[in-house]
């Protein structure tokens, strides 16, 4: 007998390691990104079939998650099924940390779990992009991918998962949020379009060789390009503090407010360096917190 409940879980992220435009095999350009996953930030969805034909969601503002659950039911279930979708999440909203995508993914997974089905990440992402205009790459945890977040396909899959990274999280504008759906996508100039080519090569090397130093260079370059579109107040100050304490680089939420100073978890001095950097960040009036992988 089929269970009456299903559960799904998805994680948030801390913005992106890179976001830009990338060529596919046919030399067509697509917007793409790699998110920096945060395993301790989670959205959990519970789907309960209560015999009703319609679907309701708690909390009520999670309309995209509701749409995703409906789409999943429509795609995979034969008869029309309704029920109750409950979402619990500790991911901050409007910071560019993937709260909405995590709700969507958790809901899809909860419905699939209820239906006792397994699907491919590609299929799940297609539903997620259908429910939400854009999506992130957190679902791909076994293998890092360069993901077309607006079209929902993998531009390039890399050989390895992302290497572990420790970082200090700084919300540059705690009183402001960014609405991902209203936010206008970056219009890159011809030089910037070009920059994503060498950065993509470097990204591939960084992931294939698990070289966090190279990854820091990629993220820093992408963060700087993004300054023209959604500038992060005091990014230069944050970078300077990072440079002083051996940070690998800086990464940002390209459609959010958070900035991360990246550190190498394999280095003994990193813990001490992170403490020193946190202290300097507080001294310039910021409110940092440490995220360890």
């Amino acid at each position, binding site marked *: 007998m089929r269970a009456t409940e299903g559960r799904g879980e998805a994680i948030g992220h801390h913005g992106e390691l890179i976001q830009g*435009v990338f060529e596919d095999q046919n*030399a*067509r*350009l*697509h*917007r793409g990104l790699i998110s920096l996953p945060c395993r301790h930030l989670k959205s959990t969805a519970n789907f309960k079939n209560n015999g009703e034909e319609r679907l309701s969601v708690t909390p009520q503002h999670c309309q995209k998650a509701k749409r995703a659950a409906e789409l999943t039911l429509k795609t995979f279930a034969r008869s029309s099924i309704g029920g109750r979708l409950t979402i619990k999440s500790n991911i901050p909203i409007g910071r560019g940390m993937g709260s909405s995508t995590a709700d969507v993914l958790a809901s899809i997974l909860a419905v699939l779990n209820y239906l006792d089905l397994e699907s491919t990440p590609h299929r799940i992402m297609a539903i997620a992009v259908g429910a939400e205009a854009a999506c992130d790459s957190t679902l791909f945890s076994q293998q890092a991918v360069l993901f077309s977040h607006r079209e929902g396909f993998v531009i390039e899959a890399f050989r390895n998962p992302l290497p572990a990274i420790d970082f200090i999280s700084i919300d540059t504008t705690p009183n402001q949020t960014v609405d991902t759906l209203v936010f206008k996508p970056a219009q890159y100039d*011809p*030089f910037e*379009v*070009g*920059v994503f*080519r*060498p*950065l*993509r*090569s*470097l990204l*591939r*090397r960084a992931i294939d060789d698990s070289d966090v130093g*190279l990854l820091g*260079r*990629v993220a820093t*370059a992408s963060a700087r390009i993004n300054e023209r579109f959604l500038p992060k107040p005091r990014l230069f100050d944050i970078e300077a503090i990072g440079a002083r304490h051996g940070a690998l680089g800086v990464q940002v939420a390209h459609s959010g407010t958070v900035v991360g100073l990246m550190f190498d978890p394999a280095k003994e001095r990193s813990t001490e360096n992170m403490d020193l950097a946190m202290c300097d960040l507080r001294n310039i009036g910021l409110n940092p917190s440490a995220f360890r992988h």
Partner: protein
Amino acid sequence: MASKPLMRNLVDFENPRIIELNDGLCGASFFLMKLLPARFILERAVEQRALKIGASICDSSSGNFGLALAMLAAQHGYKLTLVSDPSLDRHLHTRLAQLNVHVDVVSKPARGGGFQQARSERLNRYLREIPGSYWPAPHSNPDNPLAYAKLAELLIDRVGKIDCLVGPVGSGGSMCGTSRYLRVPFPGLHTIGIDSPKSVLFGQLSGKRQLSGLERSIIPSNINHSHFDEVHWLTQAEAFHATHRLHRDYGLFMGPTGGAAYRVANWWSQRNPGKKVVAIFPDEGHRYIETVYNEDWLRSVPGWRESLREQPVPVAAPTGELTGWSYFAWGRRTLDQVLASAMEYAPLRSSFENRLPPQSIKQKRPSGAMHLKPITPPSEGCGARLIALSRFDDAAVIHLKLDPEQEQFVDPLEVVFSDLRNSSWPECEHPFSIVVRDEAVGFFVLREKMALPEWAPPDVITLHSLRVGSTHQRSGYGEAAMRLAVQWVLVNRPAVACLLLAANVRNLTARNVYLRSGFCDTGATYCGPVGTQNILKYIFDSE
């Protein structure tokens, strides 16, 4: 996203093959590098509706860019008119004709403006008269350098982190474009441009240029001089010899600008072990069979039979007459900035032209100050300059007594010279005197490579035994000495990222001099025989 017009039929021909020549040195060997900017420029022109399907492309070229346009025009159905002059190689002419290119050879130079002017006038007429015609203009088209994002992508993919890029400069597209893209992730990239004597591109006086591919007398706007850390000039004979060597040693049959790039890259690579160097070889040797690869023709090349420089000679300004392989520490400056400082050096130039290359400092030289030549320009302010000493030159500085307060921190000169004479690596230790108006006022030693002290990482230079004579104290000579040391490293060891020294924690006088001279405390310490030392460093590079 919107689909772009594509002309990718020849895309496999526009990528270089990467060959590892020596440990750390790679060649990017192109079939015809100009295919890359030509394809990119045409694609962008179609995208921006400047080039319509099947329209006419017109340009002025007698070289590789014209050939690249001809191949692309044939592949993608465009008409091509190329304006050239009598220097057009007859084989290339034949080949262009077979590609259905309309080649118009200007027979007479324009009055006052030479062939360049005549070609430009003729080209303008075509552009006016052919409706819908398009001019790619590689020397000024900003899409030319942008095309090289793809080369930067490929180099990082194949080589990884790149420390130094070496290549010939013509339109400026390849070197400026590739550098600019590589420096986004690697801001410390050392970029070396290669030109030939009497070319105007890097401040030489105008005249007939020598290397094929480098034939202009005006400066293309695509050259952004501030991308270059270093510029080398090689004569025709030197470039051709190097081209033969590249063929003989590695089987790479390349054009002469590639040979020049190989020579310079190999030299830099040997002086900077552990660094990744990429040399650009823009074309293959087939076009040069009757010239660069022909012994009869080579006999007519000036200097072909003479012995060539094994090392480049550093020059203090790019404006003087160059008779052989030379280099200048360009320092990422604009042409105007370099020429302005060259003017300041002008009265001194005679003494620099006799200057020995940095390597010869290692060689045995007669001792005694009379034979010594200044090796850095006078420092501003107090007119101090640096003179390289040999390890037998103690007499030149032995009079430099110290204040008693300082004596406890600095080794006596007798000990310093005795150590220098007994050194296992004399070629890695460089004693200098600081001279003002022919009088030695100070002294220090620079160490590198094997001679580095235990507290220094492998790829730096360290400064030791600094002293300023007690009678010359408080004249700013300590800071002048630091400036000169920094300058010496910049000119002679351009790849070195920082200069380190150890200062006794109690020696506040010295510490202040170092900090005022741009050194900063690394936070590291070392316990030496006379107590704890702070390690201070001067960083040359932002990376």
